[in-house]
């Protein structure tokens, strides 16, 4: 295997594009002629093989064990017998509602903060530094700590109880750093000429922002939003003590609702014989995340092409 990777082989088969781009071109006395070189190559290739192998193992395991549970009724029925039978319809509805609340709460705040960091505070003053530093810490806060905070603040202090609203607001706090980082990058990527052109025409900064900068930054916002949804969808620990365990169809945002990841956790840990259904739910969750990943790549690539054509 490593032989096909030696520089000689690479230059002969002509597939390597090193000359055209930032790929390294190494000397002829390369890789496999020395013992450390051989060791390094072996180690690096085996790590890649092991990591890819584990990835395939996990995915194959989820697909093979989850596929038998999947059916139309699995998506449309309520769980019966603690989730061992029936479907996951109320769980999907709760998941979407929690995500909806998180998005509605996080987007205005996140986009506002991103605009502040990218546009208004031109130089890095103390305020921008403070906001940035607190976002760094926020990004590192363990999800279970978000759960504790959400439980103490939203459920008890604000009196929302175990509800979809509490869970969604907790998740909103959690996805803020991701959302803000991507949005800020999107705004910074808008060409400077847009602003100077608008300023030369005497358009106010508010109008410039609403009509020029934000529309041009939409792809960045979308990427941030979708990444945030991905993180929110994967979250379990922050939701157990905020949106709760109840697996009935939620009647309002003040009802407790069980999200997909909590459902998987509960079925595999607390329900004997629930593994089969847990795998079904895990497969649905993975599929949703895969769709999200595809959207990010698609929007990201379109965006790149767009900026390349305008510059």
């Amino acid at each position, binding site marked *: 295997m490593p032989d096909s990777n030696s520089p000689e082989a690479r230059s002969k088969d002509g597939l390597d594009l090193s000359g055209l781009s*930032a790929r390294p071109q190494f000397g002829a006395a390369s890789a496999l002629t020395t013992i450390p070189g051989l060791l390094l190559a072996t180690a690096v290739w085996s790590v890649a093989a092991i990591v890819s192998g584990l990835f395939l193992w996990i995915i194959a395991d989820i697909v093979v064990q989850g596929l038998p549970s999947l059916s139309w009724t699995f998506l449309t029925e309520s769980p019966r017998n603690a989730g061992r039978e029936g479907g996951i319809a109320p769980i999907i509805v709760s998941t979407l509602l929690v995500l909806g609340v998180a998005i509605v709460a996080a987007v205005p705040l996140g986009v506002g903060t991103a605009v502040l960091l990218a546009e208004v505070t031109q130089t890095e003053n103390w305020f921008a530094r403070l906001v940035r530093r607190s976002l760094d810490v926020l990004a590192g806060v363990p999800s279970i700590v978000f759960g504790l*905070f959400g439980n103490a603040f939203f459920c008890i202090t604000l009196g929302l109880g175990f509800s979809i609203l509490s869970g969604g607001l907790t998740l909103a706090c959690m996805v803020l750093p991701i959302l803000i980082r991507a949005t800020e990058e999107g705004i910074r990527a808008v060409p400077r000429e847009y602003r100077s052109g608008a300023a030369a025409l005497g358009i106010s900064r508010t109008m410039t922002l609403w009509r020029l900068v934000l529309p041009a930054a939409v792809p960045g916002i979308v990427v941030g939003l979708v990444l945030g949804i991905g993180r929110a969808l994967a979250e379990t620990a922050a939701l157990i003590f905020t949106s709760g365990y109840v697996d009935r169809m939620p009647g309002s945002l003040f009802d407790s609702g069980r999200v997909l990841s909590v459902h998987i956790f509960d079925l595999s840990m607390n329900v004997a014989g629930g593994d089969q259904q847990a795998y079904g739910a895990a497969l649905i969750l993975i599929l949703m995340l895969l769709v999200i990943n595809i959207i990010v790549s698609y929007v990201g690539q379109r965006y790149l092409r767009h900026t390349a054509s305008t510059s």
Partner: protein
Amino acid sequence: MFPSRRDFLLTWGLRGCGVLTASVVLMILGFLLRESLPTISRVGIDRFLGDATWHPSSGAEGGQFNLVPMIVATLLTTAGAVLVAAPVGIAAAIFSHYYAPRWLGVVFAKIIELLAGIPSVVYGLWGLTVLVPLIAQWQPPGPSLLAAVIVLSMMIVPTIGLFASAAFQSLPIEHLHAAAALGLSRPRFILSVALPASRSGLFTAIILGTGRAIGETMAVLMVAGNVVQTPDSLFQPVRTITANIALEMAYAMGDHRGALFVCGLLLMGMVIVLVAAADRLGRGGARA
């Protein structure tokens, strides 16, 4: 640009957003302190470290509040996971940048990205139904420190790999040109140029991976066995601080609940130390 009235509104509206965003962290800290300080003052810090065992449900007087075994468990699982995942993650980044043919490097980078997106509860499910039975065949009981270390390493390899990859990506192109001009071999370039030059980025990657390992709850909860004890072998079940919160929060009252918030405060303290370390490293790297 003449400041108009609407610009004034805009500026202050945006500053409001900034204040709200910054206050989230302060509120998290504030609520952790508010819920845990009464318990800390009633129980005393020394009892969190010196009590015979962990039995917090009988209140401040009758209860036992020893957190040390769980702190040790958290440190052991994190250290084990980082020791495994740091070399593996960096090797994975080296592979996709310097060893793989271009198409394979792209595919492999995508795999790492997808691995990073797999929810922790799915890693936990896989660990519980595949890994734990395998370990149980070899050395019962199965749910153990070892299972936690393996699952955690699998979870943070993508984190470390992605950030290490970004560190290699940002190496100045001149380094590559100079290496090519000198006729450096691939291993020589990696060991003497790429690794030393991206040192601070690699350390940041490891620190971020460490943060993820400390804070991980669900996957560890599902595979570690959750017995409160200081383990003397890799095959004994352990309970980490995060798992402790998740397990007991549902029914904790009074000082028991307060003690769980003390656990949260402890985690928060560890994260702040790590973020400060990453920040120092980042600035050190920018200066160098």
